[in-house]
């Protein structure tokens, strides 16, 4: 068990004892999937900056690839 007087901790669930608090998570390195059930309480752009930006850019690539696939079928039609 964590010696809580030695380190700042956070509570993530009733069944999980406190775990170390992360400064990096607060500053953009939080993970949306890990925190999915706590998002209504925790969500902020600042906390999930890397996840949000990368995920949205990823979907942009999906749209571009789908458009490219569709365009290839229309060339010469």
């Amino acid at each position, binding site marked *: *068990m*964590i*010696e809580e007087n*030695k*380190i700042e*901790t*956070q509570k*993530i*669930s009733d*069944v*999980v*004892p*406190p*775990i*170390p*608090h*992360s*400064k*990096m*998570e607060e500053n953009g*390195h939080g*993970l*949306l*999937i*890990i925190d*999915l*059930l706590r998002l209504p309480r925790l969500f902020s752009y600042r906390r999930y900056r*890397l*996840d949000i930006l*990368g*995920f949205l850019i*990823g*979907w942009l*690539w*999906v749209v571009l*690839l*789908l458009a*490219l*696939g*569709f365009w*290839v*079928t*229309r*060339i*010469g*039609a």
Partner: protein
Amino acid sequence: MTALSTLDLAVIIAYLVGITAFGLYFTRKIKDTEGFFMGNRRFGKSLMVAQALTTGTRSDFAIGVVGASYEIGMAGIWYQWMYIFSTPFYWLLSPIFRRTRYTTTADFFEERYSKSLGVFYSLFALYLFILWQGTIIKGAALTIAGITNLPESWFIWGVTALFVLFGVAGGLVATVNTDFIQGIFILILSFMLIPFGLHAVGGFSGLHAKLDPQMFSLITQKGELSLFPVTMLIISGLVGIVAQPHHMAVAGSGKTEMSCRIGWCYGNFVKRLCTIGWALTGLIAAVLITQGSVAKRELAFGVLVKQLLPEGLIGLMIAAIIATVIASCAAYMIAGSALFTRNLYKKYLKQAADDSHYLLVGRIVSAALTIGSLLMALYLRSVIDATVHFVTIVAFVGIPMWVGIIWPRATSAGAWASIIGSSAMWLIAREIKWGQGGQLLSALLVGFALSIFVSLLTHPESADRLQRFFALMHTPVGEEENLERAGLKVNLD
């Protein structure tokens, strides 16, 4: 009588000699099991992109998509694009894999749930690796044999010998460092036939003039790739992606979380781009090869190579196919070897030995797995059946992974119930002749429902276990001192 010219043979031999020497050069750098299995987690962004592209792109994928598009049109692209909507999720998932600091996916099941699930996953994954490698070797050997008119078994033995040389000798470092070169060959494989094919059919307008307009539709109105089966394949792909046994190394061996994110996500986007080239090649095949004139639709690729490419480029294409087989199989072999050595041998057979002993065991197991794959390749009846079988069952094991990551209340009993229940439901749905979409939907619903209900009916996992697991999940790479200061006993790289 072989269809290969002296120039083709020279290209193939030059490639094989060059790539083998390159791989063996890196053997000297392998001194311990961490280096052998995870490359000491030192790969940067570009190497991670190359690793994700090459381990995730296999010649049998190209051959399958070309074959499907040859028969049913552009919609055949979904046999690989089923993962296109999952790809942005790789951005979210890769730091999770990296933060676990685990070497294998079996570590996940053991640490999050129980030893029994860890052992189950190890055995499940070993079976998958053997099946998968066998399928890859079989697919490539069939195609090359189709091009050259030489016996298929020659290629099964030859290709196997090559990837063993890489994998057993050099581990993941050798594999990943040669991945740059293999990546170039994959791009060649994907696009080389298109200019020759378009020239032969009279360009894109010729393609449209000679094919039914329905062949250009991305979705078929009915049949194997209509909307519902495609939707279910996409959902199953996302559920199963976390449980694919090689992904712990592919997504977690980066130097930083960012290199893992970029590597896994964008390596796969390059692959999705290549898939467009494969589907287009299939349409070209539909014009040039009369439907029904080849025994199996997957043979269309080999026939097209022989029909379209000039001397020298046929050799280059064969080298490209061999390159993808080596890259994929060597990575799977190493991942399988890591699973056995760390999760079964070290834990249950010999707990205290020198690292050099485990390294030796890892290499012996690599060779043993390969013999299994070789036998599988020699005796496999259908490449497509084996591939579909793999894609389906891996999703059932993915359910408890997703639930276990998201929901701290998930228990080992819930995980077992989910795996057994979803597999049973799938078998029942098959027996009562539901379509592919119905089989997948019912199995996934039962799996998720059982995972939740059985977990709620059983006691939560021990506080220590949950604390250790979720502390790792919430400790980004670079903040390991938090874990040390907290006195948490976790295996930190």
